[in-house]
């Protein structure tokens, strides 16, 4: 339940949100990032709506001892702003701005059968895997 059905349904709801909001369309994402040109502000409402619902639900999380189907909440505890966080956000920002894809919409778009999506996802997986292996190798 907690490992299979819940994540599957949550992924489905999350992906439906990406599809309905238009975030699966890189042109719409780039239209938002293009603040000095012809600007599409839609992404503000996507983030705003998402943050509002998550924040409301998070109040409930804080009053709950443990998740319904798991032993504990796995929530990041770090609060420091380190160089890795900053450098990673910069690299991600450049990549996001170059193609208009971030990880969620890219994975959701795999079902569209478009070669360009496969190319992006393959490169994203390669980058993530390279980092993961490098970190594991370094210990």
């Amino acid at each position, binding site marked *: 339940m907690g490992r299979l059905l819940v994540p599957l349904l949550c992924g489905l709801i999350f992906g439906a949100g990406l599809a309905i909001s238009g975030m699966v369309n890189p042109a719409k994402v780039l239209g938002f990032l293009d603040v000095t*040109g012809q600007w599409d502000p839609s992404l503000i409402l996507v983030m705003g709506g998402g943050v509002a619902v998550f924040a409301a639900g998070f109040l409930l999380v804080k009053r709950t001892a443990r998740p319904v189907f798991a032993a504990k909440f796995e929530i990041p505890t770090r609060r420091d702003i380190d160089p890795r966080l900053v450098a990673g956000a910069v690299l991600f920002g450049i990549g996001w701005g*170059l193609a208009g894809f971030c990880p969620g919409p890219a994975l959701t778009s795999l079902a569209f059968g478009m070669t360009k999506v496969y190319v992006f996802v393959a490169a994203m997986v390669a980058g993530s895997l390279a980092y993961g292996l490098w970190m594991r190798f370094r210990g």
Partner: protein
Amino acid sequence: MEIVNFTPVPALIGGMLIGLGSVLLLLLSGRIAGISGILGGLLPPTRGDMTWRLAFIAGLAVSGLGFVLLGDVSAIVIEADTPLLIAAGLLVGVGTRLGSGCTSGHGICGIGRLSPRGIVASCIFLGIGMVTVFVTRHVIGS
């Protein structure tokens, strides 16, 4: 600046569904719905920690299939060519691992729980994304 293609109602409804899927995953399974983290946990995989990650990604893919059936895939426009897509994918892959998150983990969940790291990372990738588009469209592209 000229405002075009603004779709406030679908944007807000879609955004709220993204928030709902994220908070349900936390309340029920105790996990943060950060997509780069969910994918990254499989690269390389760890035994006993794969099922929920694959299930969530499968859920995303199924909703994409729903969009193929109910939505308009012909409206999807990917301007970037292959070399640019490869560069962008590598940057997104490495950057989200190095920075511990993307638009979902930092943007929705991080800001939603007022995490300083989430707020700072979101401001940076939003700002850098805007600068990148400015450079590619209005400096190089013009």
